[in-house]
């Protein structure tokens, strides 16, 4: 039994390795993506350009402008005498926002009422606008506290962020990329596998060859699983040693979870592949699934934000569970029980997808 199986697997590995392009795809692609995306994808806002329309010559407006100019997220400020020309600057994306200080600003503060500052954002950049608003709110809160000094102690709400106290976005991005970059090669290889043989006509040869159906299926699954595991492990090693991320969980549990994750994805891929006659169809099927799996995994936006019915469906997404495990293992020192709570749904999904793939491949062979 092991004899023919070994040959099937060796044959699949040979097709894999004979093609140098495949290796490039398996090793170079994840590395490149890690490098670019870990630095590019950030929800922090930096280097922004601001226009300031200051109609007030009092000292408080000058203080406010001084603090804005020296803020770390601001790259440059343009001070305009009036709001003339402002519209064009926002239209052409020269500035993300304009700060408008009215003429009575300092006077109002000195007289004990509130000085109002207007912030005008480019709503086309909704996300950055929202984040920048919270930054500016912080600066104004500080200035408010300084203006009040001498008055009585104000009640405060202090915020602390566990697991990632400085909210470094890379600490989220790099573990998320472990999941994404393990998923890509598995999906690509498993969906194209059967479809490629069908298109080339070699699938019929398999039917008459002496290998059993189980061996064919394993021969298709294992190389994909191997590719996903090596790509994922590579990113984990780099995350710890090159990016210096904290790793607080159990490595063996993480690797076990990754194996289950990769198998469940390979099962989905092979299921799609068994239904396709051409590589092009398989690729489209893969594409639709990758987008569905990625957008609902919590990678782009939290699952909490989704509509209720979608949150239920998301439980069937292995990437959602694996994301929780990866982030938990890196940052949260997740306990074994908590990892298992995410691992078993993934295992169920894996059993379902792998057996449906086996069933469909078996049926198409007979």
């Amino acid at each position: 039994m092991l004899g023919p199986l070994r040959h099937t697997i060796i044959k699949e590995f040979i097709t894999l390795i004979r093609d140098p392009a495949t290796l490039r795809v398996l090793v170079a692609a994840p590395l490149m993506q890690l490098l670019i995306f870990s630095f590019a994808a950030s929800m922090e806002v930096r280097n922004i350009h601001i226009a300031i329309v200051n109609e007030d010559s009092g000292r408080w407006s000058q203080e406010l402008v001084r603090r804005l100019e020296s803020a770390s997220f601001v790259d440059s400020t343009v001070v305009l005498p009036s709001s003339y020309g402002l519209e064009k600057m926002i239209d052409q994306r020269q500035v993300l926002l304009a700060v408008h200080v009215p003429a009575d600003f300092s006077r109002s503060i000195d007289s004990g009422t509130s000085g109002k500052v207007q912030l005008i954002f480019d709503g086309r950049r909704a996300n950055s606008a929202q984040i920048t608003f919270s930054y500016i709110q912080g600066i104004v809160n500080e200035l408010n506290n300084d203006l009040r000094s001498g008055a009585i102690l104000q009640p405060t709400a202090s915020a602390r962020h566990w697991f990632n106290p400085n909210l470094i976005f890379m600490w989220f991005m790099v573990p998320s990329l472990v999941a994404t970059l393990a998923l890509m090669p598995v999906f690509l290889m498993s969906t194209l596998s059967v479809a490629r043989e069908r298109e080339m006509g070699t699938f019929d040869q398999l039917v008459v060859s002496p290998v059993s159906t189980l061996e064919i299926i394993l021969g298709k699954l294992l190389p994909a699983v191997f590719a996903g595991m090596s790509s994922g492990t590579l990113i984990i090693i780099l995350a710890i040693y090159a990016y210096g991320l904290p790793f607080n969980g159990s490595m063996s549990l993480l690797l076990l979870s990754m194996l289950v994750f990769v198998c469940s994805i390979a099962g989905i891929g092979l299921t799609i592949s068994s239904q396709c006659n051409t590589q092009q169809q398989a690729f489209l099927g893969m594409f639709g699934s990758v987008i569905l799996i990625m957008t609902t995994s919590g990678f782009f936006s939290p699952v909490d934000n989704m509509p209720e019915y979608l949150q239920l469906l998301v439980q069937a997404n292995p990437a959602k569970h694996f994301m929780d495990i990866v982030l938990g293992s890196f940052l949260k020192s997740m306990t074994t029980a908590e990892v298992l709570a995410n691992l078993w749904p993934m295992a169920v999904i894996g059993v379902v997808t792998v057996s449906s793939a086996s069933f469909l491949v078996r049926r198409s062979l007979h």
Partner: protein
Amino acid sequence: MRDPSAMLIAFVLPPALLFFFGYAISLDVKDVNLALVVENDGAYSRDLAAAYAATAYFDITPARHRKEVVRELVSGDLTGFVVIPQDFDARMADPHRAANIQIITDGSRPNIASFSAGYAQGVFNTWLAGRAESGLTGIAGNQLEPQAPIQLEQRFWFNPELDSRSVLVPGAIALVTTIIATLLTAMVIAREWERGTMEALLSTPASRAEIILSKLIPYFVLGLVAVFGCTLLAVEFFGIPFKGSLGALLLVSSAFLLPALGLGLLISVVSQSQFEAASIGLLLGFMPTLLLSGFMYEIQSMPLVVQLITEIVPARYYVASLQSIFLAGDVWSDLIPNILSMLALGIVLFGLTFFKMREGLD
């Protein structure tokens, strides 16, 4: 075109994608799972707890002790918790001691953590101001400042509600177009190279440019059909405003299809198989459009090297143009530089393709 999958990609994939970007991804803070740990029964604490329960930003789970909620923060069931401590009421009543509440969030998801902390602080400050104004504050409360010396007013041009969907859906259109023009084209033409039918075609008397054009035009049309279909859906179904003109949309989309098709063609020429074309297409077409085009992540905030890389991502110019056309109107001063950049990238990509082809054929 005989292959039904091409029709599938033009008519099924775009609406499906749009649906996921419209519904699944939201960067707005709404119904965030937060626990509220109230450690005492005083009037202030109860009133503040009610204020938290009333807001639409949070889904509040009440608790009595921190211990109860810490586990859920680790497991990811909670995004954070707010603690109103034991001595909160006593301190509120005492002018010499400042009352404090604590907001703890799950920093492993930094984005939602910082939004939630900001909103939770906002709820507290609003509550405080409300107490001070209504004069219900008790001994120390009467001395609370009713108003902050500086107040901020915010206005968002082009997108007054600051709906993240209005920004994401145009991005999704760029993604759909990339899939059709770059990925599908790369695969289809790679298949022709794989089978040798392309070489056969190129040895016929028809000129090289004619053959390439005849291969690309169907995908150009398919791409435009998808853009207009998506736009219709976005406006009718998701209620996204469309301030610009259809003519501008056609112009900008055609300009984008040039480099997108050029990239697909180039990939098909350099890759020897459909498998390779698919993987390179994912790497150079799909992922950059998703992550480097500015619709998810702000380009200006990226490191300089990455910012330079985004300059050669055609989708960057397309996403910016679409956002203008949808939300602001035909801002030609913004659109024209974008169109020119896309055309320039297209010319470079087609030039490279012809160069590579000649190299491969001779």
